């Protein structure tokens, strides 16, 4: 357990749906080790994105706790949660990843700037990452000029650029065709391993889940009984 990065304990989350509250997660438990890549699978509404949001300190649980590296995220106030995300997490979403008013390079530099780590070395690292994701010439382009696959490659690079402890990816290839998705996933895997990062990926796609060290199945309106490996 000492090598565990994340410990999810009896996590419950409900959302209002009209007059009733729908339970998405109900007493869910999960432990993720450092360096481990976990795929969350399950049908729509099973709570994959919700779990990702709770681990990413973007939402608060109704009950239960998420421990991250020994810290109960529920104990953090809004500013601390923001700083936590800023410093320790990297996000990749299905879409809406990039800030449309920043160029590709500026999007990459944004996490570094927020962490006050925008030195010359950081710029070189960002440029190098752009080259790694195959877009060395697109640094000055705005996101609207990129294809969907290119945008996701930039999103992968941005999630890694500030060296976070955990990568959270929500359907990272959900909006891409199979070939492009393959390119993005290869890149994601390669870089994650190279940087030795822990990752949690929510996905519907079995080929995405296959690349993970472990697959956690979630069921609609019930917990899937995920447990420490």
């Amino acid at each position: 357990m000492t090598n565990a990065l994340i410990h999810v304990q009896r996590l419950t989350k409900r959302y209002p749906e009209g007059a009733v509250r729908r339970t998405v997660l109900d007493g869910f438990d999960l432990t993720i080790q450092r360096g481990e890549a976990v795929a969350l699978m399950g049908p729509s509404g099973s709570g994959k994105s919700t779990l990702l949001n709770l681990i990413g300190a973007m939402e608060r649980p109704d009950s239960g706790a998420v421990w991250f590296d020994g810290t109960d995220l529920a104990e953090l106030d809004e500013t601390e949660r923001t700083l936590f995300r800023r410093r320790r997490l990297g996000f990749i979403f299905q879409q809406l990843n990039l800030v449309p008013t920043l160029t590709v390079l500026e999007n990459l530099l944004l996490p570094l700037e927020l962490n006050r780590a925008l030195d010359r070395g950081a710029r070189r690292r960002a440029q190098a990452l752009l080259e790694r994701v195959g877009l060395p010439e697109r640094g000055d382009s705005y996101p609207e000029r990129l294809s969907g696959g290119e945008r996701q490659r930039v999103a992968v690079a941005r999630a890694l650029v500030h060296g976070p402890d955990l990568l959270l990816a929500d359907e990272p290839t959900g909006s891409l065709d199979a070939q492009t998705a393959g390119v993005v996933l290869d890149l994601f895997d390669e870089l994650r391993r190279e940087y030795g990062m822990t990752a949690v990926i929510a996905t519907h796609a079995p080929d995405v889940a296959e690349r993970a060290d472990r697959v956690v199945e979630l069921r609609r309106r019930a917990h899937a009984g995920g447990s420490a490996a």
Partner: protein
Amino acid sequence: MILARAGLRHHLRNPWQAALAILGVALGVAVVVAVELANASAERAFTRSAEALAGDATHRVTAGSAGLDEGLYAQLRRSGVRPATPVVEGYVDGPQGRPLRVLGVDPWAEAGVRDTVAGAAFRVDAADWLGSEAAAVLFEKDAQRLGIGAGDRLDVEVGGRGRSLVVAAVAEPADALTAEGLRDTVVVDIATAQELLGRVGRLDRIDLVVPDGAPGERMLARVAEHLPPEAEVQDAQDGAAALDEMTAAFRLNLTAFSLLALLVGALLIYNAISFSVVQRRPLLGRLRALGVGRGQLFRGVVAEGVLLGALGTVLGLPLGYALAEILLELVTRTITDLYFVLSVRDVTLAPSAVAMAAILGVVAAGGAAAAPAWEAASVAPRSALERASLEGRARRWVRWLALAGCGLAALGGLLLWGYGGGLVVGFAGVFALLAGAALVVPWAVYTLALVAAYPAGAVFGAPGRMAARGVAAGLSRSGVAGTALVIAVTAVIGVTVMIDSFRGSLATWLETTLSADVYVSAPSQAGDRPPALVPDLAERLGAVDGVEYVATARYLRVPSAYGEVRLRAFDHGPIGDRGMRYKDRTADAWERFEAGEAAFVTEPFAAHHKLATGDRIALRTPQGVHELPVAAVVYDYTTSEGAVFVGRAFYDDHWGDEAINSLAVHAATGVDREGLIDALRQAAGAEAAALRFRSDAEIRQLSLEVFDRTFAITRVLQLLATVVAAAGVFGALFALSLERTGEVAVLRALGLTPRQVGVLELARTGLLGGFAGLLAIPPGLALAGALTGVINQRAFGWSLQLSVDPAVLVQGVVLASGAALLAGLYPAYRAARIPPGEAMRDEG
């Protein structure tokens, strides 16, 4: 129907946006309706009053403000001229400080001319009319308002002296229209009015009812036989028409302001409706993909616009009505200050205002919806799904709009400065200029935002860049909001510079023309004629120690070839032409003026009647019509109607009365002014209580106070235009913040704190406001130039010295930024509170 339901549900699901659209329409409608109602109510009150006072009279015998000898009436009666009735009319201060019109009539001659007045007069016993106390008849509404009835005393003040009348009867006008026209009127008999108003032995006019055809001609011929040279017979409607014309330019200015409000209001409506349409572009794209025709989509969206417009109009009407009550008071006060006493208390819902509201609210909303609806219906289904395609199109369009705007602004410049048309052409030029500026704004905002991204990024990093580029990225939103703000701030800068220039010109003029140390006059009701002073007063004051000379002035209205004109007769003695500021003059102008051989005309008079130095002007005097050459055109800001100046010698020769209306006391060097005023009061003796002794500084201050009061309405309208524009910015920012929910969620996920998000949103708003303020400076200055150099010249004949205080320009930028920041507070607060997880789930 299903399409309509989809549209309706969109608004039900986004009640805030629907409410904003409706509010936008309501505000735009309210401002236009308010100006229109205030204008129409003032005009209506004036017309009603003129009608009620004229009664059935078709003609009037008049000799300007000097009046007629009362013997003339007796002569006319004796020669069988009837119906004819004498009138003495003037104003006194009523119990609540409001002006009361004193209508002095012969109760026995009123029948057949003004039946309501005759009816009122007959309610009083003949014995009361002839009694020792001054009897008066009040009309019912005034009696109620003043809380007095028959038998009570009515205390008034005239020429600074308190007087008391006895209310002999309270009468009820025959109908509502007459009641409205005779509001604030007190009827007294001729002798009482003459005594009260200081016009003993004089009549202001004799009203006649002249029949059609030969009998009428015979009657007029009989009148002509007895007419003294200074008098003339006027068509009764001409007098009212002349007064109406006097305020025409003022009302046209107000209408121009209401059109400005309409322009801003229309932009706001366009803004509000286009937001609700643009937000649904993905839905519209899906509907197009499902096979919905372009025409169906277009009609559906326009119908929604019309519906929102109708709801906004329904809301805007009562709002405009309430606003009109405030504006009406300002309009009335300005007309009273500048032209004549006008009493209006009620705003009447004029059909023209309702029609204007319907056109603005419903048709303009439909029209405003048409542009985005057409845009959405015209694009291919796939691209309708992409927000970027809209912004791409917007970016392409703005260049062409900017080019068209430059053309339009150039046309405006040509109309204003390259073509010597009338006032309407001038206003067309102003609107072309403003519309041109409006079309350039979106491109300018876009370009400025992109340029500003570099310094903003260098100073504030990525958030700075995001704020600046966000303005450019949301061009389809920020462009229209920015335009509304630019137009409003342009108006603020233009009008403020114009007012400042006007004030500066007036102050300079006062500085040079008020050459005396103390001015003496009797108080009069604003807009009414000044009371005459005791003739030997000048002599008595001239004998006071330290007084160098007492110059005199006589003010009156006299008939002329140009209608009734203001005449001022000056005796300057050794002071010479000190105090005259010439615009143009002949070499011996002053000498000929003093000798009574030439007249001066003021700049507005010359402009209105197209007169120049060397032309001749004909005045009707008691010695007959006399022509004088115009030896000079002088600057004068006291009346937009203009005036003719003559030397006292000419006045004495032709009028032969000793009357004076004001004295200008020139003191020897080093004489203490306060001490001098005390000495002058003592020398005036018993009359001092009814006189005003004012220093030149006091006169200057009072003149500037009246000036400021006159422009109060302009400032209110400016403020309203800014409020409307700020509402537009709020709508734009709110819509942007709703659209950017996903983007904000990503930023929050990346680690931007709520505060940083809020600051980012506010920075974007502030930048938009700052850009609008900067962009408003060039058109604002052009507008100021047009208003001072062209519009004022053509409307009033005044030439004003354009002076630009840089602080006004800074204030414009601060105002725009402040309005935008204020409007951005809630959207920023809302953005800062977006829960990132929830937002990502909703957007994903």
